[in-house]
C-alpha cells in the first residue's frame, strides 16, 4: 500500500467508523489537526475508538500519551507512525 493509499484509507476509516457528519473523506487535508478546536475537532472519546481502529486495521498499537500526541496530530503523522511501526 502506498503512502497516499494509506492516507485515503485513514480518512475513510475516520469518517465512516467515527460517523463524522457533514464531511467527506476527500475534504480532509493531510495536515489538518485531528483533535482540538481546529481541524476535525475529534475528542477524547473519539480517540478511544480511533486507537482501537488503528490496531484493528493496521495491527499497530498506540500505547501512551507521548506516542499518541505525535501520531494523532494529523493524517500525515498517523500515516508516518503506521509506516514506521509496520516496518519495525
Amino acid at each position: 500500500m502506498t503512502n497516499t493509499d494509506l492516507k485515503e484509507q485513514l480518512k475513510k476509516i475516520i469518517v465512516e467508523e467515527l460517523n463524522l457528519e457533514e464531511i467527506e473523506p476527500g475534504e480532509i487535508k493531510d495536515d489538518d489537526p485531528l483533535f482540538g478546536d481546529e481541524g476535525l475537532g475529534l475528542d477524547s472519546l473519539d480517540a478511544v475508538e480511533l486507537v482501537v481502529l488503528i490496531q484493528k486495521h493496521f495491527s499497530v498499537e498506540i500505547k501512551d500519551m507521548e506516542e499518541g500526541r505525535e501520531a494523532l496530530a494529523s493524517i500525515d503523522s498517523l500515516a508516518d507512525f503506521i509506516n514506521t511501526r509496520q516496518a519495525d
Partner: protein
Amino acid sequence: MSIKKRTETTENWSSRSIGTGWQHRFFYFLIRLGGRHIAYPFLYPVVLYYLIFRPDQRRKSRYYLDRRFPNRRGFAALKDSYRMIMGLSQSLVDRALVGICGPRILHTEFPKGEQLFNLAATGKGLIILTTHVGCWQAAMIYLSKLERPVHMLMQQDEGDIDRHYFEHSGEKNPFHIIDPTGFLGGTLEMVAALKQGDVVCIMGDRLKGAQENSLAVDFLGSPVKFPLAGWKLAAVTGAPLAILFPLKTGPDHYSIDLAEVINVNPKDARPLQRLHPYLSRYVKSLENLCAKEPYQFFNFYDMWNQDEKI
C-alpha cells in the same frame, strides 16, 4: 476549520480540600498520636464551624440533600447537612488513617470480592467505576489482591483531598495514576491498559471536560449529565465494567458493595446515545445507594445545573 461541533467545557467542581494545610497537618498529627479515637472527636468543632459560620459550605450540601429530602426544612435540614459534612470529614480522616497506618487499620468486608477477582483474572481488562461515595481507600487492600496492574484515572490538584493518602504512606504508590488533564484525557493510556488485561478505575459521577462526552439521565427526579468515558472504554475494549461502592458501616468498618457488573455491547459504542441504557443502570444503582445510605454520597456541587461554578 472545526468539523465536529464542540460544546463548552465544564469545570464545575474541584477536588481541592476546603481545609488549609495546617488544619490537615493537625489532623495527621492527631492520627499519628492516637488514630481515629483521637482524631474523630476533633471533627465535632470543625464540622460545627463549617455548619454555622460557613453558610457557603453548608449551601453546597443542599444541592444534593434538597433532592434527596425535598420536604426537609429548618432544623431537620440543618441536621442533614451536619450528617453529610460529618460523613465526609470522617471519610477524610479514614483516608489519612489508611495512608498513615496502612489499609489493615480499617476492617473492610467485600462480600462479592471473589466475583471481582475472577473478572480481573480473565485477562480481558476490567473497568472499576467508582463514585464519590464512602472512602475508596478502604478498598485498597482488595485492589491489591487483583493480581493485575491497577491504573487510576485521578486528577491530583495541589491540595487534592485524595492526594493526601499518598503523601502519608511513604511507600511506593501501588497504583499507576493516569492524569485526566493529560493529552486526550488519558484515554490512550486507559485503552492500552485494558488491552493488556489491566484494571482501570475511573470515576463515574462527575463530569470534567467536554459536556458533549456525557449523557443526561434522571437522577433523584431531574436530569444530570454523567460522563461516558468508562462506558465508551467498555464498549470499545470489551472489558467488563464493575460498579463499586465502598460504604462506611461502622466507626472503623467498611463494606465494599459490588453493585453490578455490566458488559457493554461493542455495537453500542456509537452513537453515544446507545450507551444510555447502561448508564441508566449505574444511575439506578446510585439512587439505590442514596436511598440506603443518604449521607455517604459526597457531592457538594449542583450536579443538576452543570454550568454552575463552585
